[in-house]
């Protein structure tokens, strides 16, 4: 019996840290709130101390393929909280994480002259991945599109219609939403 329990709790494994408590956003709100929406490849991820040297943050460098809203140059840098420096790792739960060569669409905010940040924490990052057969680029997760209905619409998990969007379709919708469409 004891061995059965040991196996049970080994299998009940832990997962990497991801968490915070958010106000849920749809794609229209994210597009409205962002000053720039960029699609590109992550070229560098550099952890550093904050200017007051009291916390760790990570500077992400994105080589931009295209902007769906605004324009901040061919290469844009933005900050996310947390990072790993030497012996210590600062994990800000819920903060998006990036790795070199990730392909992403990021919704960026900015206040004054500061380095841009990701709007909506992890809600403002969409991953661009190859389809299973490698024939096309898809955006995941399926974005919560704003509801056109006059009444609330329940999001049903497992809805067969909800699938990762082809990149072109996603970009068309984001451009329309950024232009004020709902």
């Amino acid at each position, binding site marked *: *019996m004891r061995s*059965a*329990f040991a*196996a*049970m709790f080994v*299998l*009940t*494994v*832990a*997962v*990497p*840290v*991801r*968490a*915070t*408590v*958010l*106000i*849920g*956003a*749809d794609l229209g*709100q994210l597009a409205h*709130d962002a000053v720039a929406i960029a699609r590109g490849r992550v070229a560098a991820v550099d952890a550093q101390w904050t200017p007051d040297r*009291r*916390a*760790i943050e990570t500077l992400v460098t994105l080589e931009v393929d295209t902007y769906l809203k605004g324009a901040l140059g061919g290469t844009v840098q933005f900050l996310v909280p*947390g990072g790993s420096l030497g*012996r*210590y*790792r*600062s*994990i*800000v*739960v*819920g903060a*998006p994480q*990036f*790795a070199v060569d*990730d392909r992403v669409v990021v919704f960026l905010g900015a*206040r004054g002259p500061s380095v841009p940040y990701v*709007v909506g*924490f*992890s*809600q403002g990052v969409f991953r661009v991945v190859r389809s299973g057969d490698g024939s096309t680029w898809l955006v995941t*997760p*399926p974005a919560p*599109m*704003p*509801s056109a*209905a*006059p009444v*609330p619409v*329940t*999001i049903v*998990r*497992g*809805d*067969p219609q*909800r*699938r990762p969007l082809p990149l072109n379709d996603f970009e068309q919708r984001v451009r329309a939403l950024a232009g004020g469409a709902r």
Partner: protein
Amino acid sequence: MSSWFDGLTTSGIPLIRRLSEIPLTRRLSQIPLILSLSKDERRRAVAMLLTGLCILSHLQPAFAYVKFGVRVGGQTVTLKWAQTPARYFVTDASVPGVTATDLQGALGRAFASWQGVPTSAISYQLGGFTNARPGDEDGLSTIGFRNRPDLDRVLGSTSFLVDNTTGALLESDIFFNASFAWSVASNGEAGKFDLESIALHEIGHFSGLGHSAIGETELRPDGGRRVLAAEAVMFPIAYSAGTVTGRTLRPDDIAGISDIYPDGGFATATGSLSGRVTKNGQGLFGAHIVAFDPGDGTMVGNFALNAQGEFSMAGLRPGPHVVRVEPIDDADLDSFFDPNRNVDIDFRVTYFDGLVIVPRGADSGSIEIKVVQK
């Protein structure tokens, strides 16, 4: 959350597995009856049983906890306090409507809720007020307000300082975003977020719990997503401002904290259910598996967390369970998984073709659930 049962009528007829291995209770007496019915009668009976579960699921709490871990030397180490009580400090800063004393009071109630779980050994200790800031890497676990307008949709967040070489948890801070309006009123206040509710969620993280996926949202005609129901404090999206619904731990949260810091008879009184999710013969990473207990209407959930699609759920009440597999296609995946993991969400909701018996103090034995592409 009725949507969890959508597609129910296409599921197969449940069968009893290894009935001889468990002590049947009176709750199970209905199941042999189902097996004696004709095919159509069985379909109707099962539909009625599961419809009943749908109703119960609105009334009864559910399980679906996930534990935090960090990668150290190629291994995942569970993130938890090595010693308890876990000591925390409260900032002496206030925000409109919430004094530092109010903050301490709301935190004290939220910590007491977690500490009061009878099957968990976790405990906490207030170290006092501090003028340190939450988020500073200073060796103190600090909780308080910070004005972070750049974190425009973040009500609160928890951070950890971890030793990269050992995975040891050195410090954990919680901040509440002062950019929002907050309340500590006993019944809540319109337009203000309930501090105790958000604190309860963040203290779950502080203690090592990740997010639960058991919750349901809706898209609002005026924009945004609103939580319709969440059977776990650890659901990642907050209830709307003005409500105090999130002040009460659910069995989901209780099972999670008990799993990380077990006490009493938690382990010996429960059982586990394990198995594998496959698509086209290959293991499927990231599937969400939910076990429904017909006896009390509770749900237990977890994810398939390796390339083989293997999963295990501990802390289940012994007895039969209906098992459902679903894609997390309505959520921000980064809220649950490492972004470098290839989470497959392109498959249909699927029920295991039979009831799975969870024995007391042991595991069900591995089951395989085959899913197909949407």
